[in-house]
């Protein structure tokens, strides 16, 4: 019961935050000098045509009414129509989101691996732990886009190990249900294409993962340090478990809590960072879409991308909270 109430509370908070986000975007739209009429009709439209368009688009209504319209549209999945592509923004986002999703999921995976390596190696004082720590620290002080460029210089230009841009060498080699090229290629039984996609994914994902990896790794390390001294760990050792088993079964599970909520936070930052990384690697995702929309003041597109990414961020934090409650029932109380 308590858990249900906890989850209900988190969901209510999620709804409120989404409303606040929509309000922020609406206000920004109000203060921006972008004129939707000029963007749709062009600069040479007659005065009457403009006035008619204003009336048709509902721009003459009072602001609260327009806000309600906007929220009503959001609820039904209507994000407006892009001035640039003339398509519904929701459709455009549907086209570009899978690429961003694949990039961020890849980066999340890399970040988790690096974070665990960082935390475990420094707690257990493995050889080379200092090197991992130093590299991660140096990487995390560097802006993501710069990491991407430096990575390109090293692995593409100098070593020639990895490709520089795009998701695949052969555009449109696969077309699958998930939109994630690596998965689609595997589902279609084309391992060579999947490997190619992975090679394209590796460098941007790595650049995106370094900062979050350090944040998650630090939290995980402090969790590990605390748990390693707990009585139940001594008991586990005393009853003769191997060190590996003690770590995997007892220490890890009791230390992941803080790291989990940090992962939720970092996931959101990764979606924002992906926008930047995409412009370095010509990755055809939401960042490229946003990058093309900004110079022409395509506000529906800008607001749509922001709303969707913000919603993903809020939702992932809610999921992290609920997961935390599942991993540690004390949190719900």
């Amino acid at each position, binding site marked *: 019961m308590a858990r249900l109430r906890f989850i209900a509370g988190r969901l209510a908070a999620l709804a*409120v*935050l989404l409303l*606040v*986000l929509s*309000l*922020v*975007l609406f206000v*920004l*739209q109000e*203060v*921006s000098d*972008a004129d939707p009429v000029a963007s749709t009709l062009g600069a040479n439209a007659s005065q009457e045509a403009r006035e008619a368009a204003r009336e048709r688009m509902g721009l003459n209504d009072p602001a609260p009414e327009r806000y309600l319209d906007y929220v009503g549209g959001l609820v039904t999945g209507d994000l407006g129509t892009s001035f640039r592509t003339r398509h519904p923004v929701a459709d455009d986002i549907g086209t570009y989101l899978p690429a961003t999703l694949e990039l961020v999921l890849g980066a999340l995976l890399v970040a988790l691996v690096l974070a665990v390596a960082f935390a475990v190696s420094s707690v257990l004082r493995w050889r080379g732990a200092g090197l991992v720590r130093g590299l991660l620290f*140096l990487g995390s*002080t*560097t*802006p*993501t*886009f*710069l990491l991407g*460029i*430096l990575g390109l*210089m090293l692995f593409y*230009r100098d070593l020639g190990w990895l490709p520089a841009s795009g998701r695949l060498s052969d555009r449109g080699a696969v077309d699958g249900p998930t939109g994630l090229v690596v998965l689609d290629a595997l589902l279609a039984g084309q391992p060579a294409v999947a490997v190619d996609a992975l090679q394209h994914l590796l460098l941007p994902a790595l650049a995106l993962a370094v900062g979050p990896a350090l944040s998650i790794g630090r939290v995980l390390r402090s969790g590990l*340090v*605390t748990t*390693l*001294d707990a009585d139940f760990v001594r008991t586990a050792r005393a009853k003769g478990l191997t060190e590996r088993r003690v770590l995997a079964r007892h220490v890890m599970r009791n230390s992941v809590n803080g790291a989990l909520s940090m992962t939720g936070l970092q996931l*959101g*930052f990764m*979606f*924002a*960072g992906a*926008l*930047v990384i995409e*412009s*370095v690697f010509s990755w055809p995702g939401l960042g490229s879409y*946003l*990058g093309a929309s*900004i*110079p022409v*003041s395509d*506000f529906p597109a*800008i*607001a749509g991308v*922001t709303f969707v*990414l*913000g919603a993903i*961020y*809020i939702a992932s934090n809610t999921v992290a909270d609920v997961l935390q409650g599942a991993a540690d029932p004390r949190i719900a109380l």
Partner: protein
Amino acid sequence: MRSETTTRTTDRTPAPTPAPRRPTRASRRRLRAGQAGRQAGRPAGRWAAVAGTLLLVGYAVLVPLLVPVDLDHVDYGIGATAPSWSHPFGTDLAGRDLFVRSAVGLRISLLAALAGALGAVVVGTLTGAACALLGGRADRWGMRVVDGVNAVPHLLLGIVVASVLRGSFVTIVLVVAVTHWTQTARLVRAELLALGAQDFYRAAIALGFTRRQLLRHHAAPRLAGQLAVAFGLLVPHAVWHESTLTFLGLGLPPHRPSLGVLLDLGQQALLSGAWWTLAAPAGLLVAITVCLAGCLVGAGAGGGTGGDGGHHGGGRAGRTGEHRA
């Protein structure tokens, strides 16, 4: 909260001062590591960071003054020359000297970062103080706004705000301020609420201190250290934001060579093999971030809290309203 636990462990030994809890093995290890760090590595590292910061700031301020070069003077004859004695950082594709241009870039980036961080701290302090002092509904709504702003990744919010306002120096400053005031607001609110619950503060109210005296003798000293650290931590972060936004084409216009502009140009020049066009601004960016952050290592613990842990616990306990006197 902390005082409760300390008193509980001492009920068998009625000592005048409560003995601290017996340190666990973990905390002992951390203690030892901390002491070792403070004795050996930290001060040296911190001094190096301070020296590095001074050096970089000196470079940014003095070089443009001392080397009389027309920044926009284009000379394709010496375009893309590698670093040499006459051009220590090389020249870019248009033949502009990168040693001077990078210094100017660093100066612009630092100025934008300082202004942005200052704006964020000021807005945060005012909002946090207003929430704590007004209490009640204003406090609840203020904190909802903070949650709302925090609910959007700040880089994303920054991109949207910058795309609405169009790129300029003021835009960068505004974006940093608008997206980063929330931490300071939380901090100030929690500190003030914790202060309101303290006995000495209530005693001061009972003694008839005026508001100004309360602010000057109790609130300001408590907040000053914290705010300084918050500001110091924001500056390198703001440098980072300036370069990212400018790199995306949302920040400073190309004729103001900030680090972001230089990095953008450097990336374009990479294709023709001129690695130094990227190396100079990239190295400076990393160096200034590391040095600025390094100056503050350990400062968060030493600065100003007066050894009062649990901000949040204190904050909750302090919601009694007496501090409003």
